């Protein structure tokens, strides 16, 4: 692949935003390189990633959301540290008959009436920081952190699966067209025809009981991979179809013709010519997918078809807390808030990312901020 064709190849998705200069707009050629040159008319130039980054940096709200998300991720990653060094218990360890000593005061973790201890903050050295869950007396904070790991794992890994499947299907379908396109598109239509929750619920229930056997690979019904694969699978058409649409448009562009004329094979055209031009769309989809996946995981776990007890996820914690909603609403509110914060932060960041990557978003960005996007290059 010649550098020229690569440059050409990048003009398709970003041309409106970078049309003033074909040079330097190649994502894959310039990558993250920030070309901070002055175009001579007061406008700054640079590669599309650099422009996107500059735009994103100016969107403080999106950056704050990213910060919140990263903070949540870090906290969840540190779950074992909290469990072993502060709470001194595991996420599934029950404390039904235990008593908590706070100075002279002795509190039962679970009262004979079945009501569990409420948030203790640091009164017991960090034990039962957020209280205990229901009759089993498990540490709510430890379960929240471990549950977050499950929820984030499913959210992110399922988004990766969706992205990979969607890219492969969309490339094959959009590039080859004909029968390949018909078969793949109809397959996507079949999945699309089912409501996401119902389809994933049906799959979740079946696989939670019997597990999943793919050749020599056996996944137990309680494996986190089961909901992850299901969620990754059911969302595939929702990403693959828009990507296919973009590919159909890109396929007709001159730079593809040029690549063909230069003797590039289909794989090379798909992965080195077309795919780089889809990156901005893919990144935005990927980000927003994480939020959707986490919500779907919560729904499935709540309905018993996602993460299987006693493993915790924020969805299972809501489900478990729901049985004590009347006397201990915090058991539902806490994981619910965690989901809300995470999904909101991912969505706000994803929205910011879309604004930053989508050249057409300048108008929206200006309209929202009330200022001209002076770093934007070229007319919209």
């Amino acid at each position, binding site marked *: 692949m010649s550098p020229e064709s690569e440059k050409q190849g990048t003009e398709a998705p970003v041309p409106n935003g970078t049309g003033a200069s074909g040079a330097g707009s190649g994502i894959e050629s310039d990558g993250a390189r920030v070309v901070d040159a002055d175009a001579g008319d007061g406008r700054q130039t640079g590669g599309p990633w650099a422009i996107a980054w500059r735009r994103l940096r100016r969107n403080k709200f999106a950056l704050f959301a990213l910060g919140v998300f990263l903070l949540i991720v870090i906290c969840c990653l540190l779950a074992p540290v909290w469990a072993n060094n502060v709470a001194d218990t595991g996420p599934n360890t029950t404390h039904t008959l235990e008593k908590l000593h706070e100075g002279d005061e002795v509190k039962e973790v679970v009262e004979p009436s*079945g009501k569990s201890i409420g948030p203790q903050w640091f009164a017991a050295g960090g034990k039962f920081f957020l209280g205990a869950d229901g009759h089993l007396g498990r540490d709510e904070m430890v379960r929240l952190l471990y549950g977050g790991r499950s929820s984030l794992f499913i959210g992110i890994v399922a988004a990766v699966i969706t992205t990979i499947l969607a890219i492969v299907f969309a490339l094959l379908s959009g590039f080859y067209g004909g029968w390949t396109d018909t078969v793949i598109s109809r397959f996507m239509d079949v999945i699309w025809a089912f409501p996401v929750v119902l389809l994933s619920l049906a799959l979740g229930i079946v696989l939670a009981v019997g597990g999943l056997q793919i050749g020599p690979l056996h996944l137990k019904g309680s494996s986190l991979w089961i909901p992850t694969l299901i969620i990754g699978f059911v969302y595939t058409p929702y990403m693959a179809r828009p990507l296919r649409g973009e590919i159909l448009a890109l396929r007709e562009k001159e730079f593809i013709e040029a690549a063909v004329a230069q003797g590039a094979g289909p794989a090379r055209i798909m992965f080195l010519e077309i795919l780089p031009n889809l990156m901005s769309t893919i990144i935005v989809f990927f980000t927003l997918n994480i939020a959707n996946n986490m919500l779907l995981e919560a729904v499935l776990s709540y309905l018993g078809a996602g993460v299987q007890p006693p493993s915790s996820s924020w969805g299972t914690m809501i489900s478990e807390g729901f049985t004590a909603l009347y006397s201990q609403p915090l058991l539902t509110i806490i994981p619910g808030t965690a989901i809300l914060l995470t999904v909101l932060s991912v969505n706000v960041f994803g929205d910011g990312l879309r604004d930053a990557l989508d050249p057409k978003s300048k108008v929206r960005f200006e309209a929202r901020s009330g200022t001209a996007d002076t770093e934007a290059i070229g007319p919209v």
Partner: protein
Amino acid sequence: MKKLPYFLLVAALAAVLAVGLAACGGGSSSSSSSPSTSEGGSSENEGSGGGEEAEGGGSEGGTLKGAYTSFPDYMDPQISYTAEGWTAMRPVYIPLLTYKAGSEEEGAEIIPGLAKELPKVTNGGKTYTLFLRKGLKYSNGEEIKAGDFKYAVERAFLTNSGGSPFYTDIVGAEKFAETKKGGIPGVKVNEKTGEIVINLVSPRGTFENELALMFVAPVPQKTPDEDQSASPIPASGPYMITKSEPGRGWTYERNPYWAKDNGKQMTEIPSGHVDKIEIEVQRNQSTQVNDIESGKLNWIFDPPPTDRYQEVKEKFEGSQFKEEPTISTYYFWMNNTVEPFNNQKIREAVNYAVDPAALERIYTGQIKGTQQILPPGMPGYEKLELFPHDVKKAKELVAESGVKDKEVTVWTDTESPNNDAGTYYQGVLNEIGLKAELKILNADNYFTVIGNTSTPNLDTGFADWFEDYPHPNDFLFLLNGENIQSTNNQNFSQTNNPELNKKIDKLAEEQLGPQQEKEYGALDKAFMEEAAWAPYGTRTLALFVSENVNLENIIWNPTFETELTSIELTE
């Protein structure tokens, strides 16, 4: 001439209007819903009284609205084997013999049902002769025949009912259970006289009790030999099920042939107070409580959820809430035929590790800790404490057994707190060195799934057992290896000790007396020494009704729990 018809028309309209207004007003009057006028027409009473004044301040008529947390296992008399199913079908299907609608000991008394009188037992306890009452009809108008009883017994085998082992002592029943062909020769009927003669292979001391079970309640002989939960079988009792939607709910109306025919003969069986009963499946138990408080529901099958139990108890005890003891055992079964539970040391270890006190708390005091098969209140019960809680000892036993990190599956259902009990149990197994995985199944089909021996990974799990009749055999037969069935199995632990099987069989032949009670007590101990189960408690249940239900008059039968026929709505 023209004015007169016009005047007449106006007068006629005015009269119609007046009658209409009067009718509207009369809808809530106390004369609108007597039982005799109830057929298809009293639903406007909607959960309120408004009928004839009954003794005790209640009133006749109205629609009772109730809720279950899950649909019964089956809505079919031959197959259902849960308290949910039996409570629901008690006023619908009457066996030849039945239990008196009473509480405690009175409720354990056997009285004639469709049979004229209690059976005549001859031939050394091997022949039972009964006569069907004459002129009885099903709710579809069809005559109840003696052959319907024979068909009911056969249908219990044809449907692989969990209750069929009660009847394998009938001559030819065992062969019929295998072949499902040729009928059961041990049951002979005479349609003209209504005579029913049952010949047993050997005497069976519990047979009268077993004739009073729902499994052999006569049904029309054209009833298909498969689950009829969605197509209610015609009723012989005071109520008929008019609509049944598995998973959602069902509705009763009065059996039109009860007042005319059946009820006149079976005077000891109450006719019920309300005209219509609507039961919905409401999965959220907290919503059930709210609906009772607001009057949307009048009665709930399950006790208030653990989350709200204390609050409801404190607020409504005596007026709308009361606790009722049950003759029951809650336990963890361990499949004696598979590793690691085929090792007695492991089973003993589990018994040492399970802490009834912790489970009492998980059940918010609604169970009382026990560690044996026979529950308190059951003849033959003698308190045993073979496995005082000792995790250290449990770990030692596991170490001695040589089992390490063995993967096992723990089964439980979704109903709270059974799900928490399962989670607790999984933690206990992990603590003593096993690798336990939890499977939580929907309560609607939990026992059907674990009762199917071909279900994979049936290692261990939760189960409970409420008495079918006040006889220790009703608990110990669960551990009789001869009763293991491929479907609808009740011997979840698949315990099969030939020596103890023989003892159960021998005792079952004898009438219950002090000596037999002693021997049943010894059998209980023998099974617990083998650590066949890990029992952890006996249940207290609660009755919670709306303000307009007469709590005082509700009968809590030891076998059928709430007698639906005893619920009456106050005005």
